[in-house]
């Protein structure tokens, strides 16, 4: 699956540019394709534009130039009905964003019932199935504030799956979690990858990106600097900036001090 770029692209970005109201450039000409069932990890230093990129794909930011296509259809520009696009593109946020006024099942059913107008019994059955799958079968009636961070994030992921998205955007979904809970969330994502879910993942978990991604995009200053297979990117990064970036994740103990104590 690796290296597939344009055989069967579900998402195509072409020279996407974005600028914040304060003048800060978020994206400075980003182009790449994502194939169906491909998992693309986007890595890079903070402020490099990787989260902005995800938000553009979901219409939460307006792009200033270029185009984004979903399944061949241009989804940027005037007159786009984002509420229809967003049903096909799921997004999971760093802070889970479960709805605190609804219990777990209520969170899962809100989209299917109110947006997709599904049958309640059928949607409930599907919700319970997904809960079972992520190991939360007994928490359907729990309230968000009664859940641990890892449990919340698993619910947030399957809340997206309830909409049967064609593409899933994961924005730093483990960044707010205690270390011991990262694993349970990443296991769910790995399971989705194995099932062939197309995903665009922004992450700081390098070992996870390496394990689950088909391709790694390295971004800096609003541009894609390097695109490679995980093997290549993590073993022999092609650019200096990628090498510097990866070096930050390695800890070899304090630097050796030269000279003898006097």
């Amino acid at each position, binding site marked *: 699956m690796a290296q597939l770029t344009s055989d069967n692209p579900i998402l195509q970005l072409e020279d996407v540019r974005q600028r914040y109201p304060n003048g800060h450039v978020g994206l400075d000409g980003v182009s790449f394709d994502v194939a169906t069932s491909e998992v693309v990890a986007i890595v890079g230093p903070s402020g490099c534009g990787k989260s902005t990129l995800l938000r553009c794909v*979901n*219409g*939460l930011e307006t792009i200033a130039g270029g185009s984004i296509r979903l399944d061949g259809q241009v989804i940027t520009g005037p007159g786009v009905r*984002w*509420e*229809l696009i*967003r*049903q096909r*593109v*799921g*997004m999971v*946020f760093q*802070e889970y*964003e479960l*709805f*605190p*006024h*609804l*219990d777990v099942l209520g969170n899962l059913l*809100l*989209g299917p019932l*109110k*947006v*997709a107008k599904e049958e309640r019994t059928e949607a409930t059955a599907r919700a319970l199935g997904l809960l079972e799958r992520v190991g939360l079968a007994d928490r359907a009636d*729990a*309230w*968000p*504030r*009664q859940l641990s961070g890892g449990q919340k994030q698993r619910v947030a992921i399957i*809340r*997206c799956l309830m*909409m049967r998205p064609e593409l899933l955007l994961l924005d730093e979904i483990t960044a707010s979690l205690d270390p011991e809970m990262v694993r349970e969330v990443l296991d769910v994502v790995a399971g989705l990858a194995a099932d062939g879910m197309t995903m665009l993942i922004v992450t700081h978990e390098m070992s996870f990106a390496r394990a689950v991604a088909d391709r790694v995009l390295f971004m800096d200053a609003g541009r894609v600097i390097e695109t490679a297979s995980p093997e290549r990117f993590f073993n022999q990064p092609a650019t200096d900036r990628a090498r510097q970036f990866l070096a930050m994740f390695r800890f070899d103990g304090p630097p050796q001090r030269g000279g003898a104590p006097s």
Partner: protein
Amino acid sequence: MDVNTLLDYLPLFAQAAVLTIGIAAMGVACSLVIGLLGAIYLYFRTPVLRQFFAVYIEVSRNTPLVVQLFFLYYALPKLGLVLSSAVCAITGLAFLGGGYMAEAWRSGLEAVPPLQFRSALSLGFKPIAALRHVALPQAMARAAPALTANTVFLIKETSVVSVVALPDLVFVAKDLIGASYNTSEALTLLVLFYLLILLPVALAAAALERKLRHGEFGT
């Protein structure tokens, strides 16, 4: 104080109380709706309407109801707009209350994290549906204490509607004081009837607030 006089006056006050309650209920209902609309336009930063409501809120909150009612009842007819006493009273209450309720709704909505709204959008909700199903239910819980306090405030403000010639509780009391000199009886009934109307509302408001303070969603 004479008990027989009290009993004689009772039906008069009961009738006036019905009027007071009716005007207050209509006024509160209208102001809740106006306030919600204003808060939504402010929330979505709808051009023009947002500025309109910002000015309206300041005007309604910085002028007294009595003056608003004088204007509606005595000045507007000079522009050819003649409103009945009851319509004047309800319009005045709605005008005053709309500003207060808009502020209450707005601060409730502002307390809901923006990402909640965005994550509803990302599920495919249209903005107005995201507001209705996700932002508003949370805003309502946060705004409830202010909304109920405003409700009590508006019911109290209803006491001035006699200036537009409505025979409410105050009107009846004043009438009896002027006509019969049974001042203590009239005043006693006036106070009692307002207690009767406002005490249950105030107690319900306090109970609601206690419930919301202790029971966030899911405890």
